[in-house]
């Protein structure tokens, strides 16, 4: 599903990713672990081009997304991203946070379709043989209503439907992060990227967020999680990548990484964090 080939990223003269090659298959749950500064976030953020790779390529379903001509916004729609600090839109209510992108994109697609139909009509004026119009089966109101229903359904799923009209500043960290997750889900992404989703949370809220991520994993969502929660990585991941100094040093099943790591750096790291 995602092929990363010799991915490099440098800030000025410091190389942060030193040629990463790996493949992420549909349905895999990949945990990325490793010491601070090893390039975990940078790698994750290259996958949806929040960081511009210096060289190498990333193929998503066969298409190279590092290509300058690739429609990056279209690509990001298929990859949900969840941040350490939630990043809910502060000027929007919970419901608006979830609805914003789907409504905007729905309306934009509708506008494009209408514009194309206008061109077809114009063309048909001057040609004997008529081209058919693109069928339009939706309307602005429908798009909004559907996005709203979907958002409320997602909120219900996480038990926060009563917060629909609340502003993010009134919510707890755990609530914010669960809403950030369903906000990403509202785009129906094919992959979810998580960058330390529980690191900014008070300990008592970590559980509720991990539970939600676990549910998504059980439903078959493909995901890549940068995490310091080793227990969670071991339980949920189908594969664990250990990164150090801009390289993937070890890539294996959680059992083997956690019980019998091959690389001395992995052993050293795990002995510190476990």
């Amino acid at each position, binding site marked *: 599903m995602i092929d990363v080939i010799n991915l490099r990223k440098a800030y000025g003269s410091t190389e942060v990713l030193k040629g990463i090659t790996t493949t992420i298959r549909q349905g895999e749950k990949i945990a990325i672990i490793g010491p601070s500064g090893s390039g975990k976030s940078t790698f994750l953020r290259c996958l949806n081009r*929040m960081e511009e790779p210096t060289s190498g390529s990333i193929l998503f379903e066969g298409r190279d997304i590092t290509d300058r001509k690739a429609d990056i*916004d279209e690509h990001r729609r298929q990859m949900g991203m969840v941040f350490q600090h939630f*990043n809910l839109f502060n000027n929007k209510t919970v419901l608006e946070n979830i609805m*914003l*992108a789907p409504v905007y994109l729905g309306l934009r697609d509708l506008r494009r379709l209408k514009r194309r139909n206008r061109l077809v009509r114009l063309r048909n004026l001057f040609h004997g043989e008529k081209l058919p119009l693109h069928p339009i089966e939706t309307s602005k109101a429908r798009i909004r209503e559907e996005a709203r229903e979907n958002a409320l359904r997602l909120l219900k799923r996480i038990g926060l439907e009563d917060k629909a009209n609340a502003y993010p500043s009134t919510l707890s960290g755990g609530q914010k992060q669960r809403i950030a997750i369903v906000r990403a889900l509202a785009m129906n992404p094919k992959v979810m990227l998580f960058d330390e989703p529980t690191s900014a949370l008070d300990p008592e809220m970590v559980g509720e967020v991990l539970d939600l991520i676990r549910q998504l994993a059980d439903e078959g969502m493909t995901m890549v999680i940068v995490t310091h929660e080793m227990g969670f990585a071991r339980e949920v991941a189908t594969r664990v990548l250990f990164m150090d100094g801009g390289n993937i040093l070890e890539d294996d099943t959680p059992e083997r990484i956690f019980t019998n790591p091959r690389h001395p750096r992995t052993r050293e790291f795990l002995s510190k964090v476990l």
Partner: protein
Amino acid sequence: MGNFDKKLERFWEVFIEHGGYVKVLTGLQNTVWIAVAGLAIGILIGTLIAVVRVMPKTNRLTKSLEGLCVFYVGLFRGTPIVVQLLVAYYVALPLMGINIPALQVCVIVFGLNSAAYVSEIMRSGILSVDPGQMEAGRALGLNYRVTMMKIVIPQAVKNIVPTLGNEFISLIKETSVVSFVGAADLYVAFNYIGSNNYEFMVPYLVMALIYIVLVAVAALIVRQLERSLRKSDRRH
């Protein structure tokens, strides 16, 4: 102080009986119009400049646009507004063969001038918004422009309302130079009243009072706006 009573009487006479109040009302209207329309233009253009300046500089176009904006801001902040007015009215527009009324020239020049100041205010406002907000928008597949318009700028504006209010008040005060190009503002009105009998003490005193009230009202409006914005922060 008997003298002062007489001055007051004379002022009243010109103010009411010779139609001075009409001129004052027109002047007041022009002053407020130049400040309000100037600020509106300033916010529009200033926001554009601010966005150009905070945009990631990826190619030659964005870099040269930024250079242009830096030049613009430097130009308008580096010269007195009177000079800008005079140059616009007596040099630039005639050279271009354009003939428009002084009042409109004032609105445009004050708008362009205020854009330079607003752009700096807006830029710091945008920079004060958590970069995570832009990241979240982009990660959802919204483009830069939409994320800027729907997420970042609304939060920036909320942060800078007090500073924008100060800019508005400065504008009101600075409009007192528009008579240099013949626009009829409060000064022109009271100068007319005073010239009527060479008695300037009371007219200019009243003019000062009107400016004080004007600025106080503006400050009140800004404070009210701030309060209602803050309230929306606490909404549940």
